[in-house]
């Protein structure tokens, strides 16, 4: 740090150019603030560069490759020949185009390359190849995101032991892959590689995979894993990788699993250790998160935090809304983060959930009725040969208001959008039931599940 450095005044300083950071910066600029955004790598963050976007590109390719099997079954012979290096090239072009789009979104924002450290409640140092620059800000928004959690004994070397970024960048389809961690990231990628021909094993410490989701949803995915020949070892922990084998420990003892590559996907760790938060007196929770109020303000009134470094699911859409809220609060608008954050997994079938699950509602003391509609009864699902899954609506018995929706099935990630709107606007099941969905589409299932919920509610059975 250069002593006596002259600090440049700026109204809003955003640290981190991921979905939360760039949304916050763009919104603050739109509201007339002078904004500097500091990014140490590349705009777009994990989501765009090594997360959501590249993984969805590969998942889509794998899904379509697997569809060849179904087509053969109904009389259409296609034999996919996968040039994985070319697929990776296409994936990179998608990412590059979207990163360019973020740059355009930030046309009124000054983007500074470097690593930021807080020096005080209004001061930050940004270190880059060119030296150190100091800024004096009226308000700062911390949006530094998260990184993969490390597993003892499994050092990510980028060759054999990979994190999710590495697993998305493989230039050829591996013969075998062991996934450590049965959360959505590991299961999504495990399914994608299994569909491309990799022999996949999922190792999970707890007693089931996809612990963030209703068990009824997770079971739909377990069926697919079974069908694809993916071995799932629960109550098992990985202890090391050597000579193409992963060593695991379970109540049954020690075992080895053949694994050309190991994907470590055991959760995410907030990036809060390098910010020098102690300098500004902002406490870091044991989990690495920062405590914030509804306005995303930390205990230091000038410093806001959003995204993966605040408690809650580490998801881009949560970060983006938190970013908008922080920017608006800084601009003096009456904003607050009080919405439901939908959860989704691009597994097979896809899973999506918004609001309360049945069990969460019951343990919170909400009297609920549940309605289901299975895609096995959907005309559109039958014509697509994708009949796994269901829509489940959780409604409050007294008011009929929809408190939560869970979906497993093809397109669940898109279908949940209507459910998010219903939950957020406090729709009643009857409102959904009486809304006409086009036929024949998968979207009809939401109305049917709401109707089933209404019948259950009237009968007084759940």
């Amino acid at each position, binding site marked *: 740090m250069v002593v006596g450095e002259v600090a440049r005044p700026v109204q809003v300083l955003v640290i981190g150019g991921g979905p939360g950071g760039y949304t916050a910066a763009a919104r603050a600029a739109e509201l007339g603030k002078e904004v500097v955004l500091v990014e140490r790598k590349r705009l777009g963050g994990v989501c765009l560069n090594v997360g959501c976007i590249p993984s969805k590109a590969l998942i889509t390719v794998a899904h379509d490759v697997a569809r060849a099997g179904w087509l053969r079954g109904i009389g259409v012979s296609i034999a996919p020949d996968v040039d994985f290096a070319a697929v990776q090239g296409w994936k990179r072009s998608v990412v590059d185009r979207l990163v360019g789009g973020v740059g355009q979104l930030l046309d009124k924002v000054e983007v500074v390359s470097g690593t930021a450290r807080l020096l005080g409640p209004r001061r930050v140092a940004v270190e880059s190849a060119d030296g150190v620059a100091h800024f004096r800000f009226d308000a700062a928004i911390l949006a530094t995101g998260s990184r993969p959690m490390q597993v003892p004994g499994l050092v990510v070397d980028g060759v054999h032991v990979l994190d999710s970024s590495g697993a998305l960048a493989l230039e050829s389809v591996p013969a075998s892959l062991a996934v450590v961690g049965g959360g959505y990231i590991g299961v999504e990628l495990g399914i994608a590689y299994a569909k491309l021909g990799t022999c996949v094993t999922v190792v999970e410490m707890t007693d089931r995979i996809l612990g963030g989701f209703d068990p009824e949803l997770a079971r739909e995915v377990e069926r697919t894993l079974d069908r694809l020949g993916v071995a799932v070892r629960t109550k098992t922990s990985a202890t090391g990788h050597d000579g193409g084998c992963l060593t695991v420990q379970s109540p049954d003892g020690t075992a080895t699993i053949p694994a050309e590559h190991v994907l470590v996907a055991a959760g995410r760790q907030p990036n809060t250790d390098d910010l020098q938060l102690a300098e500004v007196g902002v406490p870091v929770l044991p989990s690495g998160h920062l405590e914030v109020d509804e306005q995303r303000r930390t205990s230091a009134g000038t410093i806001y935090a959003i995204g993966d470094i605040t408690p809650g699911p580490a998801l881009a859409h949560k970060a983006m809304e938190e970013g908008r809220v922080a920017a608006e609060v800084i601009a003096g608008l*009456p*904003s*607050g983060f*009080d*919405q439901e954050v939908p959860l989704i997994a691009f597994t097979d079938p896809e899973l999506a959930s918004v609001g*309360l699950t049945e069990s*969460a*509602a*019951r343990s*919170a*003391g*909400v*009297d609920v009725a549940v309605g289901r509609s299975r895609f096995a009864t959907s005309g559109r699902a039958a014509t697509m040969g994708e009949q796994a899954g269901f829509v489940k609506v959780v409604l409050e018995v007294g*008011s*009929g*208001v929809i*408190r939560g929706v869970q979906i497993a099935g093809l397109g669940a990630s898109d279908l949940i959008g209507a459910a998010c709107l219903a939950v*957020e*606007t*406090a729709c*009643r099941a009857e409102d959904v039931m009486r809304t006409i969905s086009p036929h024949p589409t998968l979207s009809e299932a939401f109305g049917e599940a709401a109707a089933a919920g209404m019948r259950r509610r009237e009968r007084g059975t759940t």
Partner: protein
Amino acid sequence: MAYEFRLPDIGEGLTEAEITRWLVKEGDSVAEDEPFVEIQTDKALVEMPAPATGTVVRLGAAEGDVLPVGDVLIVIDDAKLAAPSRNGQPGPEAARALATPATRRLAREMSVDLRGLAGTGPGGRVSDEDVRAAAAAPSSAGGYGAVSPAVSAAASDLASDLAAQPEDERIPLRGLRRRITETMTQSWQAVPHITAFREVDAGELLALRQRLTRRAEAAGVPLTLTAFLVKAAALALVEHPMVNSSIDVAAAEIVVRASRNIGVAVSTPAGLIVPVVRDADRRSLLAVSAEVREHSIAARDRRIPPAALTGGTFTVTNHGPLGGWFGTAIIRPPEAAILGFGRVQDRPAVVDGRLEVRPVLPMSFAADHRIIDGDLMLAFCITVQELLENPAELLLSEG
């Protein structure tokens, strides 16, 4: 299993209550519906019946503590009893407001706390109008905090002046006093008052009361002057229904009340309490007198049931007991008017062109000018005056 019973809202937007006396202690057994605690709400002392039979595991507060609604009042253990989730205060997840994101933004803008705000829309949905109405009513969900920035700035200036004198006594603003503070502030800020004064010749009234007193006492009821005043007000309201109305700002409507329920202000050491005599127009003078008396005794002992304090449509207040003459009363929202009387005194009066000494009853009438204009105000006063100067008419309505 242990059953947590939380302090419920027992009416009229109760937010907190003082635990005045425990009737059980930890380790005691208690039977369902048996009173277990005496609490002081805004207006009355109330004995709470036990929600279940069992052993008292824990008392949630000490005598003298003020407990917010929703806090644990008592823990009762009963192995046979499953904890019904609905009696527990819902967790944060359960307590989600039924409002769209745009309405929630409006609530933040107007400093209205949506938790506990009852929506008027379908399924309890909170509308923009509900939020605006709550913001306009400082004593409701908006709470004490929902004042304009200018007001709160002035209040904080005042607070720093107050802080400069630490030797002053500070009395917590609680219970009844706090309730009066809120209601009167709300009325003063929201209701444009107009007031009229009239002197009523009370000669006939005193004579009639004198004649009826013996019969009334034989029936065990002392016939008070207040009973005549309540009766006169109720009959005048029949003639002028708009005076017996309320303004519903949110709906942009005037609500003309079907019943004439007359509140009678009673002074107690803790502050004014206003018990209500229901359907005073249709009940006999004797019945009204008996109820006014019963109510005022119960109110002074702070033992009046909360139900007797609600449902008023008009208020009568007597500032005469200590010799008061004319006074300007403040309307109790959502009522539209209040009638005040002073003490009857011998005064010089002009009768048929000659100066005479007459017993005079001073009357003041305050009305909400949003609903009641000057002509209606005077017409109502004249009707009351005529009834009191020809009091036999008050007996015509005996039901």
